[in-house]
């Protein structure tokens, strides 16, 4: 299968846009179509992607102030009364500051609240470690009944926003404010909970989510020249995790690398490792993420490079996992010889 329905990203000229723009367009489309949605923000309407919505639909919008916890509690009440609510704040403020409220009020009640983590991952860039949101995917993933989606670009972000409005129970959507390449088109398939193969390959599977899907595609191209055949999968829905897909990848390619713009503990890599360990066929695996440390000040692109999240870092993780795979195969052959 060729890279069907994907934007042309062969050239460096790929179009750049913050994924939160897609969130904004999704919200506007829902309101235009007459859905009874309410959008809330906590003093970040200027940057989180709700600014345009606020202008166009002031009666569907509420800026609650610097009150993230109260915002999410209020959203619970609105949801109880039948509203479809989108709450918006920084990723780490939703996932961190309001976590208990999300857990004990929203998840415990299985309420229809869509929680949008803006400016997540390394997007906060120059603002540095305290503001960068690296742990959000991991902590949101542990919540009972929570769906977690990390769109790869603004086009997918819009689809995810619209899909969230139809998904029962709470959803966490993670957005970037950094301008990142657009890799998908309106035609690229998107189904919540279903990972998509973006590029075929036989030697190794790379499972990525969020803005680093683009980097994974670049790494695959680069390695093609070295004769390494890399399958790239966009695993936008980190929860519920597409276990069927991962079992298939394990069997078909025998090695997996996960890539995420966040902590390497408990996120996409964690979800994948949990799944692999339980399909009874552990295979060589590498988790590319940020290893047990805070981020720091720097430009978004600079930081991706600094933390090994660009195509270069991904390519070296792929080479490493292929060595593990080769060693494993060799070990198995030796074992076979011995037992003969």
């Amino acid at each position, binding site marked *: 299968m060729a890279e069907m329905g994907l934007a042309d990203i062969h050239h460096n000229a790929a179009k750049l846009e913050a994924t939160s723009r897609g969130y904004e367009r999704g919200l506007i489309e829902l309101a235009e179509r007459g859905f009874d949605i309410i959008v809330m923000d906590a*003093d970040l309407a200027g940057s989180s992607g709700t600014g345009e919505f606020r202008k166009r639909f002031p009666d569907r919008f509420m800026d609650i102030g610097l009150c993230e*916890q109260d915002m999410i509690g209020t959203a619970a009440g609105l949801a109880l009364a039948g509203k479809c609510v989108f709450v918006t704040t920084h990723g780490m403020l939703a996932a961190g500051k309001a976590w208990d409220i999300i857990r004990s009020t929203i998840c415990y009640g299985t309420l229809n609240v869509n929680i949008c983590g803006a400016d997540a991952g390394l997007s906060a860039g120059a603002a540095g*470690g305290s503001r960068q949101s690296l742990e959000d995917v991991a902590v949101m993933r542990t919540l009972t009944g929570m769906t977690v989606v990390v769109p790869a670009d603004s086009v997918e972000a819009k689809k995810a926003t619209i899909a969230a409005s139809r998904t029962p129970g709470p959803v966490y959507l993670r957005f970037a404010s950094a301008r990142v390449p657009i890799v998908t088109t309106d035609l690229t398939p998107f189904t919540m909970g279903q990972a998509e193969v973006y590029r075929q390959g036989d030697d190794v599977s790379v499972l990525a989510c969020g803005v680093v899907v683009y980097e994974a595609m670049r790494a695959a191209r680069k390695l093609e020249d070295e004769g390494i055949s890399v399958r790239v999968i966009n695993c936008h829905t980190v929860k519920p995790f597409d276990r069927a897909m991962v079992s298939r990848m394990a069997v078909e390619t025998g090695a997996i690398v996960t890539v995420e713009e966040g902590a390497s503990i408990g996120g996409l890599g964690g979800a994948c490792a949990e799944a692999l360990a339980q399909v009874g066929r552990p295979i060589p695996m590498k988790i590319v993420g940020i290893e047990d440390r805070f981020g720091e000040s720097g430009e978004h692109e600079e930081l991706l490079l600094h933390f090994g999240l660009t195509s270069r870092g991904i390519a070296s993780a792929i080479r490493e996992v292929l060595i593990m795979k080769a060693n494993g195969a060799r070990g198995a052959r030796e074992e076979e010889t011995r037992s003969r």
Partner: protein
Amino acid sequence: MSPTPTELRGVAKVIRRDILTMLLEAGSGHPGGSLSAADIIAVLYWEVMNIRPDRPVWEERDRFVLSKAHAAPALYAALARRGYFDVRELLTFRKLKSKLQGFPDMHKTLGIDASVGSPGQGLSIANGLAIAAKRDGKSFRVYCLIGDGETQEGQVWEAAMTSAHHGLDNVCAIIDRNRMMGDGDTEKIAALAPLGDKWRTFNWHVIETDGHDVEQLLGAFSEAASVKGKPSLILARTVKGKGVPFMENNPEWHDKKVTEDLYEEAVRALS
């Protein structure tokens, strides 16, 4: 020897210029809330606080917690000008591998008493420091600068109860009451008024003052130091973006990028 009010005004001007330079170099950051805090920080670091820049971790020093952590440039400028580190470091603000992170990191920057970042958390830290001082029989005081929008965070009010309940007269909070937050006017988004009365009801000693008048600020800080058995709040009326007319009271300048042209204009306006 104490600086004169004229000298303090001069210091605040230098801090304002440093803020603009840092933000220009960094290409991002928060001009409005940094400029509004410049006089308060000048008065604290040049007169009120008992500190020794040559001994940044001196145990008896007064502590400062910048709860409105996005005003980091104002604090960094003060620390550099007081000699905690080389003024040239200011030009690295917000850059990769800099000691001066977007939000204060005590492990990277000399003179920072507490790492801070997320609004709403500073007063609790100040309370903890103040309780420890009392337990250890130490006389240092703890100053905590809070944004007015920031006081919408629930934790601020939990902390306000703790300070009062424990009679922390070694805590002095300052609210930078510029009536603006990120998205606009505090009173239009989540009204705070009557803010002084709220703190009085929480059993704080409240002193209302002009947050840009160094003499009034000096008076307020010395009144706060004389209060026994209660924490003090200095409710400082300020102007967001103070000193740069086109930034004043304009919420856009909460976190707008300072460009080369505007920088020149802003610096001219300061002097």
